């Protein structure tokens, strides 16, 4: 995934491709904003802190807020809870915005209350993120086409939509909700997925039509439909072979894990204005405490001295800041729950969060020594 500042700078050479800078939507309530340059570095735990004496308590109670959000969600879909601010209209404030009140709402409305709050909140935040990251991935893909055909696409498509009286493109919202469900299916039990599925079906048209995009075939069809809406007319007009059945337009769609790791996330901590059980949203910016498991130490002892020194150096770096993507990233598949730290010459370390902010180093070795390739 290319750097957005670089993409914006190239788009600036294409007339009309970058819109006027507009500020992101204002959050419902005030609260401190926690920004992360990556949307995959968050952590949400239940906190013991019930708030400071200067706590502002909203005049409305939680039930009123939830009823209000029920109505907003039925009219505006998930965008009433979280939103993506596009880089075509913002150089510095683009990214995903999620208020903690929305996380509380989803945790209460979508999941069984017998599940512990921190788990429900993490699931809710993941669902919201997986919806919003699709908007980023689609915008990224469209920007790549704009650079390829040297014609503006995203801004005209947005204006065409407005002119036709629509607030959103149905297939894009269906795709975004489908991504939330697809990702949840890989990590949560059926009952949890069904709860989210039922809730999303109460959304407005487009948002509620996600079931057509859940299968691999449907998902790809919806990505391509978003592309056809945004890029199709100029691409055909410039005779690029865009509609040629042999053309693989999906090649421009970024890997969604990469997209999450490259999209800024703004968590708006507005939950303190209500009497919610406290959650402490946190962005993983550094890892000051790492304990090495026995397995790790056994593997470590067998390494060359320079590798051992590199790891000691890496630990000191981690205490200050986590490395940039992709040198530090969440792992998938059988290594789900682990994070990969990449050293030189293909050597890497698998670490995972343990309790109380402490991380565990579980494995170290080369790509093949770790059981790959």
């Amino acid at each position, binding site marked *: 995934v290319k750097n957005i500042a670089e993409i914006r700078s190239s788009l600036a050479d294409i007339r009309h491709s970058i819109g006027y800078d507009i500020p992101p939507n204002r959050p419902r309530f005030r609260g401190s904003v926690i920004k992360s340059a990556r949307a995959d570095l968050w952590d949400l735990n239940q906190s013991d802190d019930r708030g400071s004496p200067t706590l502002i308590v909203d005049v409305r109670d939680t039930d009123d807020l939830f009823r209000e959000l029920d109505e907003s969600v039925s009219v505006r879909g998930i965008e009433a809870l979280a939103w993506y601010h596009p880089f075509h209209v913002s150089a510095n404030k683009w990214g995903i915005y999620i208020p903690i009140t929305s996380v509380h709402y989803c945790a209460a409305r979508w999941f069984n209350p017998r599940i512990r709050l921190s788990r429900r909140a993490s699931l809710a935040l993941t669902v919201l993120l997986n919806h919003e990251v699709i908007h980023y991935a689609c915008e990224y893909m469209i920007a790549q086409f704009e650079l390829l*055909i040297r*014609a503006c696409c995203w801004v005209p498509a947005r204006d065409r939509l407005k002119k036709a009286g*629509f607030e959103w493109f149905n297939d894009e919202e269906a795709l975004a909700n489908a991504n939330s469900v697809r990702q949840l299916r890989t990590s949560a039990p059926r009952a949890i997925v069904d709860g989210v599925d039922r809730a999303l079906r109460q959304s407005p048209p487009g948002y509620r039509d996600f079931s057509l995009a859940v299968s691999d*075939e449907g998902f790809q069809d919806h990505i391509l439909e978003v592309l*056809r*809406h945004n890029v199709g007319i*100029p691409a*055909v*007009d410039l*005779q690029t072979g865009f509609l040629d059945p042999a053309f693989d337009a999906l090649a421009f769609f970024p890997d969604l894990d990469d997209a999450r790791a490259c999209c800024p996330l703004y968590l708006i901590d507005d939950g303190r204005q209500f009497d919610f059980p406290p959650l402490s949203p946190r962005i993983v910016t550094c890892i000051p405490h790492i304990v090495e498991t026995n397995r790790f130490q056994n593997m470590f002892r067998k390494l060359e001295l320079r590798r051992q020194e590199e790891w000691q150096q890496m630990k000191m770096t981690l205490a200050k800041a986590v490395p940039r993507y992709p040198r530090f990233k969440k792992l998938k598949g059988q290594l789900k729950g682990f994070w990969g730290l990449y050293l030189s010459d293909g050597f890497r370390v698998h670490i995972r969060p343990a309790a109380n902010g402490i991380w565990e180093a579980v494995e170290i070795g080369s790509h093949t020594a770790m059981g790959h390739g």
Partner: protein
Amino acid sequence: MTQTGKDESEDGGFPFSVVRMVAPSSTALEQLASDIQGLAQANIERARRIFRSRTLPLLGSDARLFDFLPQVGNLSCELDYAILEGIHDEAALAILSLPPSDDELRPNLRIEIVHTGKGDDRRIEFQNAGVLLGKYWYRYQEMNMFDVVEMVKELEAAQERGQSGLDILRRSKPPAPPRRVK
């Protein structure tokens, strides 16, 4: 814009024709045996995806934009094949297949070409890229005040000569697109 209007569209951008997919109706699907219904529905969904992949969405309409009208027959065959694939039951085939056409030169298609006008005035509907993209079209050019003043003077002179001045209105040539195959 007419079907023969390739030259007319030269300054309006690519002329898209407007089309719809003709799929078996829900009533027709209900007439199928229950074991075939699921397969037929999956086939129709696949045909719908093929149709979407070869056309572009037209906002606010169930119709879509098609880029090459002479290919409509081929696309129709492809959709027909997708809809009937794996269905061998004769009764089901009779329900799902396109009815034979009365006119040999105009076979029934899985694609409906949208027309404008009524009666003898029926013409194929076209939508031009330049109109669809409006001010964002790369060859779109707004006249400045001086151009307008000059054009008005020329129009007045043309009218004094007893001419309509239509050629002056049509004369302006927008700039070339960023990249276009000649």
